[in-house]
Every structure is written in C-alpha cells, then in structure tokens.
C-alpha cells in the first residue's frame, strides 16, 4: 500500500525521521478459537513508502504450564549479583546448535539376540536335511559336519591352534592333503602360529567386501545375512579400537566362489538397517 512520498519540507526539524504518528494504529484480531491471532501493523520502508505488515501467529496454551503462584512471582524478581551487571550481549545462556538425542544402546524394537528362525534355506536344500548331522562347533543340527562348519574360523583361537593347518582352510574341498604332500615347517602342527601372511592369502579368495554398514551391525548380523547364499568361512567387521563401535565395513569369505558371486549380485544395493549396502569383491591388499 503505497502512499505519497513525504517531502523533506514537511518534516519537522528535529524529528529524526520518526513519522510513526502518520501511520494507522496497530490492529490485533483474535486469537480465535483455533488460536490464530492476526496483527496488522504499518511502517515505512527505506524509500518512505507506507507498508502494511500482517503477521499471523498461532497462540498455543502450554498444557503443562502449571506454575505455582510463588514461581510466577519469582519470574519478576530483579537480577542480583553478577547477573545484574551482565548485558544482553554477554550470552551466558545459549541454545545448543547441535541436536542431541537420547542415544539408545540398540535400535528401538529390536531384540538383543534374535533366534534365527529361517536357518539357511539354500544350504538346507543342498544337503537334503539329514537330522543326525550335528556340528560340534556351532551346535547346528542337520546342516553340516563339524569339519565343514562355516563358523569354525569364528570359534575361539585356542581351538585353531591345535588343529593341523592343512585342514584349516575353507578351501579344503575334499583335498585331504595331509601326509601326501609337503607341508612347510611353519605350517606343521606345533609350529609357532605366525601364519598371518598365509591366512591373508587364503582369505583373499572368495572374499567379499561389505561397506556402508550401520554402526550397530556386528559379525553375527552379517553372518545371518550372508549365510543364506552358502557356507561362509569368515566374517569380519572392522571395529574402532577406541570406541568399540563398528567402522562401517566388513569382509565375508565364502567357501565357494559361486556363492560369493550370488551374494554380490543379490546384496549389492540391498537396504539393511536403513542403509544401502555396497557389496563387492575384496581387492587383495597390495604388498
């Protein structure tokens, strides 16, 4: 709403440009039953034009605002001590710019350890479901024998030490090489178990890298996810040593290469814990 411009000559001398007396008074409408309050104000903008400003606000009564009389009275107390001296710019009280959440130890609604109801259907189908097969390592019935247990690498290290290293690997596909071929001394039973180099070599085979894992994902969760594609020999989730939380990536080794291929094709781009998984072949670490 533009009115005619005010000329300099019309201004009183020491008025400092305060022309508010020329404006219509402030009008407040409401609040109505929905709590909508309208305030109409007039002011001058920088060019001297009269501007109508309509502010619509919603007035909400705080249902919980049950203040005692004494508390209301205390609201009007004068400041004292150092508080009386501080000006508005001292900014002793600030609202955090960071949103702080009550961080739940685990996602709401999820159970700490969910029993695996589904089992692994693929493995069950291929094995024909013999009930008498009981694995001594993981206690699973009808799935595999102890020697073929996909979890045996996950079992405690004490167990792996006294096992002959030749049957250790998942690549022991019926190749019981013991006795028939040369075993290097450092791989023989009883040798110092400094087989890290050799382990890595083996682990590079059929190894799948999983990235973009959520922080809550642990190795059992990953195993649960991947074992549907075939026997898994190793699951590893990188963990921050300081905080103990996951760093968001991990590795899964399959016994069979075709299972790994299947897992990559199925799970790459799969939504898991609100995140899109990225599953690919693990590239061997350059030496």
């Amino acid at each position: 709403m533009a009115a005619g411009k005010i000329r300099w000559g019309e201004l009183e001398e020491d008025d400092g440009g305060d022309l508010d007396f020329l404006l219509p008074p402030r009008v407040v409408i409401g609040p109505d039953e929905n709590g909508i309050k309208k305030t109409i104000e007039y002011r001058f903008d920088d060019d001297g034009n009269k501007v109508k400003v309509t502010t619509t606000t919603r007035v909400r009564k705080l249902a919980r605002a049950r203040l005692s009389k004494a508390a209301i009275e205390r609201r009007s107390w004068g400041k004292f001590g150092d508080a009386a001296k501080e000006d508005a710019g001292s900014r002793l009280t600030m609202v955090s710019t960071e949103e702080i959440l009550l961080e739940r130890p685990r996602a709401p609604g999820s159970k700490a350890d969910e029993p695996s109801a589904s089992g692994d259907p693929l493995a069950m189908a291929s094995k024909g479901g013999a009930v008498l097969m009981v694995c001594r390592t993981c206690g699973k019935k009808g799935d595999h024998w102890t020697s073929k247990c996909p979890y045996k690498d996950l079992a405690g290290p004490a167990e792996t030490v006294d096992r002959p290293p030749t049957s250790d690997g998942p690549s022991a596909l019926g190749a019981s090489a013991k006795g028939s071929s040369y075993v290097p001394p450092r791989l023989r039973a009883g040798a110092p178990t400094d087989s890290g180099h050799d382990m890595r070599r083996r682990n590079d085979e059929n190894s799948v890298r999983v990235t973009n894992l959520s922080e809550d994902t642990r190795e059992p969760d990953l195993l649960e996810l991947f074992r549907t594609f075939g026997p898994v020999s190793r699951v590893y989730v990188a963990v921050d040593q300081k905080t103990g939380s996951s760093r968001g990536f991990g590795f899964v080794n399959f016994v069979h290469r075709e299972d790994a291929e299947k897992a990559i094709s199925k799970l790459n781009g799969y939504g898991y814990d609100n995140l899109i998984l990225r599953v690919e072949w693990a590239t061997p670490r350059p030496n």
Partner: protein
Amino acid sequence: MRPILMKGHERPLTFLKYNRDGDLLFSCAKDHAPNVWYADNGERLGTYKGHNGAVWSCDVSRHSTRLLTGSADQTAKLWDVKTGKELFTFRFDAPARSVDFAIGDRLAVITTDSFMGNQPTAQVKRIAEDIEDQTEDSALVISGITGRINRAVWGPGNRTIITAGEDATIRIWDSETGKLLNESDKEVGHQKAISSLSKSLDWSHFLTGSLDKSAKLWDARTLTLIKTYVTERPVNAVDISPTLDHVVIGGGQDAMNVTMTDRRAGKFEAKFFHKILQEEIGGVKGHFGPINALAFNPDGRSFSSGGEDGYVRLHHFDPDYFNIKM
C-alpha cells in the same frame, strides 16, 4: 533435544539443585559464587557472592526463600534466595562438603572434611526462623567415620541421617542421639568411594554412585540393596526421575586423564537406566569432560547436568522420551 548451555561458571561444576517448584536451578562450582538460573529458559537470575573457596554443595528451602551452601573456605552460608544477600555464616575448622535441609527447614546437616588432623564430621545445625536468632551451635556432631563424607542427607521423617563417603560404606545414624543404627553390607555394597547420593521423591529409597563404576539403589530404612546399575565409568553423579522409573548416572574418567583420551572414548554421557529392569535406556552426550552433577527437574520433564568443562547443560526431553518402551 536442543540443550540449553549455561556458562556461568569458570571452574568445574560441583553440584546442581532444583527448588521444589522446579522453576529455579541452583548451580555450585569450584569458582566461588553459586548461581541461580530460571530452569525453563536458562536465564541467569543471580549469583551469591561471598564465599572464598570452591562451593561443594547447596540446598534450598522448601519455599525457595533460603539457600544453604557449603564451601571449601571452611564455612557454610545461608543466603536470601531472592536478593543474593548473605544472611549467616557457619564457621568450621575444616572445609564444608555436603549440606542438606531437613523436612521443615528447621534443621540442616553439614559435613566437614578431615583437615589438619581433624576428623570428618556431620553436624546438625538448627536453622532459626528469624535470622537474628541464628547461632552457630551444633545440635549434634556425628564423628568416627574415616575418610571424607561426601554426602549426608536426612532420612525419612528426619529421624535418621544417612552418610556416605570415601570409605565406600553407607551409614544410618539416629538424628537425635547420634547413634550408629545401620551400616551397609561390605559384601554387596560399593567397593570404592561413594561420590553421590540422591533420594527418591517419597524418600523410600535412595541411589548412590561410586567410583567403582556402579550405582546402587538402597532401601532408606533397612539399608538393603535393591538394584545395581553397572556402567563402564566412575560415577560422579546420580539422580532418580521423579515421574518415571528411570535413573540417570553420570561420570567419566578422572579429570586428570581427560586430555590423554579420545573424547568418544571418554564416556562423558549421562546414562539413563530403567530403575527396575536395570537396563540401559540410552545416553545423552555433550560434555567435554566428566559429569560432576546431575539433577532432574521435579516435574520430570527436563534434567540438567554440570560438567568438569564448566558448563551446565539443561535438557528438555523430547516427547518420545516419555513413550520409551523397554
């Protein structure tokens, strides 16, 4: 939640206390002036100037008229809450550590540290209605405890006084005669110094936090252990929610080790536990150092924490906090 950060102190916080209506929050720190804040928006109302040492704790009378503070300058002072005027000074021969008004505000228990060969004591003072009649005489002096008494509070109905401190033992004393009535079981009790003690609203039970990285819930009459909450950090501060079955536990590693550790590994969150199930509900992060003080607003809708970093953080809970299912 967007917490309100209150930077009124230049030194680490030591104690936080809401008045009974929950509209004022009193904060004590190792600098010499306790502060009072409006508990809804965190605006500072005033400071109480007069102490000459770290202020270890405070208590406010039921009608928010008087404030009692205990300080390392070997005094405890009574203040007018409204004006910040110093009303009275109790002088001791050792630093005053813990103060607590009895129900009715006519009595207060003040503890003093062991200092220059003195034994630590818990002293009961009569608080006169008219400040002109106030004297320094002790109605009762409890002594015979080894190690600092970190907290002394009144038991149900002012009949007893409960003390807890560095010797990891909780003791219940008769508030009339000063006789030792009960002692916490060494087997089930805390293994290290007890740093904090907080009563439930109805005074039927209380919660203690200890440097042995646990907090324990006790029956206020029989001193039987009810629950134990285990954390992975030394506990400096505890409080019990007045409305929900929640407890909050705060702490962190020793302040002297803070600079040597990653912030994420420092465990400086306030941890919420379910009071009955003893399960962890969640954690609230934010402080850059251990938490030294915690307090729930008496309405249960907000809580504040004070840290070694000199900040008071006032948290108003999000609505979904009240719907947490275990």
